[in-house]
């Protein structure tokens, strides 16, 4: 195909298009800052209509004191463990005095009593029932 003087050829035009394509319009820092500030503002307004659980961490309401305390002890798992330990501690505390007094005063089952010396006390055999916490006193108090 013959080249016309009054027209630039397709190949030459492509060279110009390539040159234009190679120019990257890098955004300025101020442009980035402005656009990201816009994005933040839009996101804040979007978050305003959402419930707390659906908000982003940045826009969600501050956690309550109860939630903060729960976080301190390791979340709901830690809380459940602490509650169990508390209940069990209370149960042992209420049930133990009978056992303690039995052991401290040597008031254990007669089948296991040895009267020879005080040293023999340590070798005495307890009946299982002597070591089990008793709630008898608590029950008696009503």
């Amino acid at each position, binding site marked *: 195909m013959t080249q016309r003087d009054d027209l630039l050829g397709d190949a030459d035009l492509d060279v*110009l298009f390539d040159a234009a394509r190679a120019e990257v319009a890098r955004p300025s820092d101020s442009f980035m800052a402005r656009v990201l500030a816009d994005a933040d503002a839009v996101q804040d307004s979007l978050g305003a209509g959402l419930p707390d659980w659906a908000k982003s961490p940045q826009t969600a309401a501050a956690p309550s004191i109860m939630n903060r305390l729960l976080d301190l002890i390791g979340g709901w798992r830690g809380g459940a463990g602490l509650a169990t330990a508390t209940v069990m501690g209370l149960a042992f505390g209420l049930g133990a005095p009978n056992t303690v007094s039995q052991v401290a005063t040597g008031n254990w089952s007669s089948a296991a009593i040895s009267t020879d010396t005080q040293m023999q006390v340590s070798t005495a055999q307890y009946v299982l029932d002597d070591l089990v916490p008793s709630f008898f006193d608590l029950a008696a108090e009503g």
Partner: protein
Amino acid sequence: MALDTHIDASDDALLIAFGNGDRLAARTLTERLAPRVIGYAARLLKDRAEAEDVAQDAMMRLWKIAPDWRTGEAKVTTWLYRVVTNLCTDRLRKKRGTGLDEIAEPEDGKPSQEAVLMQKQRVDALNSALSTLPERQKQAVVLRHIEGLSNPEIAQILDIGVEAVESLTARGKRALAQALAAQREILGFEDDTA
């Protein structure tokens, strides 16, 4: 969404993540899309500062539409080019009252090498020739030959049929070929073919 997953994510996924409260998605999308948006607007407006204003406006519209964005209905880039095209058209219409001569010329760079100088010369020549085209021709040529979009995408952006796009780009290219023919020698095409 973690930073490394942002880099691989599609524009669609990032926009939806933004709508769901992911702030990092905004940064990734801006870094990815802003150069294209600013470059396109600068070619239409011939003013870098004004192009950044248009790009900021277009990005703002993108953030606002994020909660309603539906995957697969349109490409984010196509939607954005369309918004930028309309914003630039509005600005050019307002400017027409002040006369085209008052539109600022692109900033001159400081080329340090012959190749860089030639590159700049070619881009300036092309931009000057583009500015002589009717608005729709210019938009179609830039989107097709510089932004590299397909004819159906350009049809969506300009809100016309594919045949109309083909016609616009063909007439635009011919007009460019005429406008630039006289500068053939100074644009160094012989150097490229040698």
